[in-house]
């Protein structure tokens, strides 16, 4: 346990020796005020020291990025040790920054389908992969670069990347891009996505930012078996989020589509998609993918919108894990733990 303590005398050799005798590690000693930081197994030992005026446990701070993760229930998953260990995700995007400390460690394989090399010049893949590694930090990623430096993605590149990912035995694929297309799931790309889904690759894809008119879900979000993710903004369905055709069943669900990184705010279904992929990956450390996918839509919050706007509702990792725990307690389902 880490603790902060306020002293009633300056910290000197006598006080330091007393800390050592109690087995208390001194982590920090302020030169500006009478405050020290310590680590100990025995909080009472700290409180009993004569030079300690008051003390308390060191708090956990919340970085701005983590505010988004709080909203979708990620701390609950992490507190249950669900970090996505053993899960392989294909990240079809604009590449990665090779020395990005928050994501580079996660990548085990790379392929470029743009002719530019695997680096991220569009600065899009870096953002979405940071979301994935924040939610499922122990998952492994395959970098499939399909978006070029201009933010464009060629359809053939998507076919190439998906097939490459399939042959690498990935369990999940994250597609934070779209092709604006009035399609009911019968275009060649959507059919290919359905084919891969039937073969066991779960494809999570964006609903597109061409809303709010009806029929604005982009491909391959129209694929029947894709998990198609719309976006929320300030607890409402984002105006730009793609809306499905009547009775199409799209989008499948919605997720937070806003992210604040420092003084920059990003939004889009690109942001919402890895929120869902990450949640599924994190849960896969404890539950089978089949059980997670069965419970996924029941673990969504109803925001009161039409089905073609919100799908099954807004995903929440905490709700979903409670649901899966109940299923497990009732003796059904294939829990791993």
């Amino acid at each position, binding site marked *: 346990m880490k603790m902060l303590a306020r002293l009633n005398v300056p910290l000197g050799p006598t006080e330091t020796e007393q800390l050592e005798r109690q087995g208390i590690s001194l982590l920090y000693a302020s030169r500006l005020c009478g405050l020290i930081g310590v680590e100990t197994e025995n909080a009472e030992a700290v409180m009993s020291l004569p030079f300690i005026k008051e003390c308390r446990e060191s708090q956990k701070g919340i970085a701005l990025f983590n505010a988004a993760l709080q909203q979708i229930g990620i701390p609950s998953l992490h507190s249950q040790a669900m970090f996505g260990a053993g899960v392989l995700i294909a990240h079809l995007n604009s590449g990665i920054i090779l020395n990005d400390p928050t994501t580079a460690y996660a990548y085990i394989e790379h392929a470029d389908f743009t002719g530019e090399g695997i680096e991220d010049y569009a600065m899009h893949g870096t953002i979405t992969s940071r979301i994935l590694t924040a939610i499922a930090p122990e998952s492994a990623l395959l970098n499939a670069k399909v978006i070029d430096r201009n933010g464009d*993605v060629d359809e*053939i590149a*998507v*076919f190439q990347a998906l097939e490459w990912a399939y042959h690498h035995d990935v369990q999940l694929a994250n597609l934070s891009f779209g092709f*604006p297309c009035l399609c009911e799931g019968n275009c060649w790309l959507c059919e290919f996505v359905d084919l*891969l889904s039937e*073969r066991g690759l779960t494809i999570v894809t964006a609903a597109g930012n061409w809303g709010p008119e009806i029929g604005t879900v982009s491909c391959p979000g129209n694929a029947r078996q894709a998990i198609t993710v719309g976006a929320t903004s300030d607890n409402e369905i984002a105006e730009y989020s793609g809306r499905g055709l009547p009775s199409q069943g799209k989008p499948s669900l919605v997720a937070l589509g*806003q992210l604040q990184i420092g003084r920059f705010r*990003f939004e889009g279904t*690109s942001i919402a998609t890895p929120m869902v992929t990450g949640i599924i990956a994190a849960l896969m450390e404890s539950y089978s993918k089949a059980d997670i996918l069965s419970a996924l839509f029941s673990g969504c919050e109803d925001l009161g919108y039409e089905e073609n706007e919100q799908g099954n509702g807004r995903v929440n990792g905490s709700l979903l894990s409670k649901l899966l725990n109940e299923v497990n307690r009732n003796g059904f389902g294939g829990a791993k733990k």
Partner: protein
Amino acid sequence: MTRLLVRTNNITTIKELKKYGEILFLSSLTDIVGIETKEEFITRIQQLVGSDNVRESKTGKMLIQRGS
């Protein structure tokens, strides 16, 4: 140059397609072939496989914007 998606699973047809450009995608899972070719060959490819089985490879976009 243009990129096309062609629907065929006929080996002879695929060999024929190679005369018109570079095969970029050949699947073991589906009968879609991706080819980069010159615009002047589009009609010949359509005649080879049927115009319903040929279309241009679309261009999509990443889905992010800077918020206000």
